[in-house]
């Protein structure tokens, strides 16, 4: 049936289909251009010499790697900062996903009291402006000696990662057909096994998407990372970038800021390239069992 449908489509709709393909490509080009043009400007600016920084030519001339050299100057500690960012965002993502998966499963599959209240509470916690929780949090962490530790950045990062992860995963789990799970349980799987073997693979696109979003959000967190640390050895990349200084207090080191911006974006692009198959492969993988 499926095959017939396909052939019919192809034979009867050749010309409009071709036309439509072109339209799709044009759309793709437009969207990609929109996303990349400002980023291209960032890249171009990062490759200009400090003295040409105000140019508006589309290509840097001459191309200069001075800004990148400045970023990786040992005094900036940028390599270390990237590593710290990786540690903080990585652990945040794994922990948030783990906790959120449990919670979301309970929300999607279990009946219990106060469910709506709890979901509302969870989302409510993500609504308070960060600016207002920094000082109380700083007092708390100072008291328990968490200043200059990874957990002082990881735990607050969980606070904005968790609500989104819980909500997002709940929606995904709820869209999974419960018949499959029921069948597996009848076949002798425990609830946990049924969840792990049926639901998780099926919901993989949701899980990986959530992971990417959580990671990026944690990667870009600035205010808390700045407030909770004062040693260069523990600072994250956005904090390190904020400390880039020009020769005096007045000149803005725009070139090296842009170079650093390019550099912090690249690991995320690599991550997306690695995981993008997972974002779209979920259903087929799960259903083919």
């Amino acid at each position: 049936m499926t095959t017939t449908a396909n052939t019919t489509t192809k034979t009867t709709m050749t010309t409009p289909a071709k036309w439509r393909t072109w339209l799709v490509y044009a759309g793709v080009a437009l969207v990609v251009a929109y996303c990349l043009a400002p980023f291209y400007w960032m890249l171009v600016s990062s490759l200009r010499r400090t003295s040409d920084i105000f140019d508006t030519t589309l290509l840097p001339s001459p191309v200069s790697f001075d800004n990148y050299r400045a970023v990786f100057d040992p005094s900036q500690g940028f390599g270390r900062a990237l590593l710290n960012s990786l540690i903080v965002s990585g652990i945040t993502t794994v922990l948030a996903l783990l906790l959120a998966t449990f919670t979301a499963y309970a929300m999607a599959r279990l009946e219990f009291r106060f469910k709506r209240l709890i979901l509302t509470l969870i989302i409510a916690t993500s609504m308070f402006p960060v600016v207002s929780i920094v000082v109380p949090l700083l007092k708390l962490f100072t008291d328990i000696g968490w200043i200059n530790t990874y957990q002082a950045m990881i735990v607050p990062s969980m606070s904005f990662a968790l609500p989104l992860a819980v909500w997002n995963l709940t929606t995904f789990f709820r869209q999974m057909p419960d018949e499959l799970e029921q069948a597996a349980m009848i076949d002798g799987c425990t609830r946990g096994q049924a969840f792990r073997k049926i639901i998780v693979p099926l919901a993989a696109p949701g899980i990986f998407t959530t992971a990417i979003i959580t990671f990026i959000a944690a990667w870009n967190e600035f205010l808390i990372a700045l407030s909770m640390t004062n040693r260069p050895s523990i600072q994250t990349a956005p904090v390190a970038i904020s400390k880039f200084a020009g020769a005096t207090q007045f000149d803005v080191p725009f070139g090296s800021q842009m170079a650093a911006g390019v550099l912090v974006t690249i690991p995320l692009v690599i991550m997306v390239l690695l995981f993008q198959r997972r974002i779209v492969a979920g259903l087929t993988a799960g259903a083919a069992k």
Partner: protein
Amino acid sequence: MVDAKTPPDAAAVRPSGAAPRRAGRPAAPVRFRGGQKRATAGSGRMAALLVSPTLLVLTVVVLYPTIMALRESLYGAKGLDPETGFISDTEPFVGLQNYVDIFGEAGDRFWNAFWNTTFFTVVTVGLETVIGVAMALIMHKAFQGRALVRASILIPWAVPTAISGLLWRWIFNSDGIANALIGQQVLWTTEGFHAKIAVIIAEVWKTAPFIGLLVLAGLQVIGKEVYEAARMDGASPVRQFWHITLPLVKPALLVAVLFRCLDALRMFDLPYLLVGAQKNSVETLSMLAQNEASNVRFGPAAAYAVILFLYVFLIALGFVRLLGADVVGDGGTARKAKRKGRLRRAPAPGRAEVSA
């Protein structure tokens, strides 16, 4: 509205193979509840076990500071002793005076910021939704080099806000590339509607991929068979989009839009970095709170934060009520269960065939 239309349309395009299943379905919600009931003995405890770690983390990191902030909002700024020239150590308790001041003395500024915040949220989230869904549809398409396209679409979202604020300020400089491209000198960072436009362009650029990514994930759970059946029935692509794709990605889209709204309502960095502090055209509620805090008036700052919190909370609640309970989950009422049942049925035919 879309919700109400779903069942007949979905039924119209449903392949005949799914019909028996559907016919047997009226009992399904009941069976589903029954199935859950079987587990209910342990499910309360199990739910507690599964939910408590999340609640614990959130309590420590958010609830505690939030309650502190609530308390703080009842205290005024520390006073200056004209004799010694020193600011007193303690903040005076002023009750609700901070709130009264916000609506009274600072009323004009507050309402201006309130409308700016609302305007930015409505416009940016609206645009982001349209562009984000378009992005998702593109990323969903199978073509050569799509891995690169996916990665490049996500780049704006990956650039740290602080950096993108600087980047856009550079682009919108009086001698910047934006003016070079449009061929005239617009002073983007001065007061006026153009400053709003600059913020909107930068914000939409940065966050549309967020919606795109979440919708893309939502698209994955729609079986291909649903589309093929629809095509066989002669449904046009536009019709397919409105009547199949959109209803089916609705839960994912709603979560994405909801979280974008929550974020946009608290917008701070971008207008602050791009246009600057105290510009009436772009001043948001978060910027007011920040302004008070930076002048060491933590009480009034907390009061602004609480008002913003309440506003965001109301929007979130209204959102959930208005656009579908399926975001929140089981309300426990029969009506909602039924609605949920209807929605959930839609993807079922596709899967039924796959698993069969």
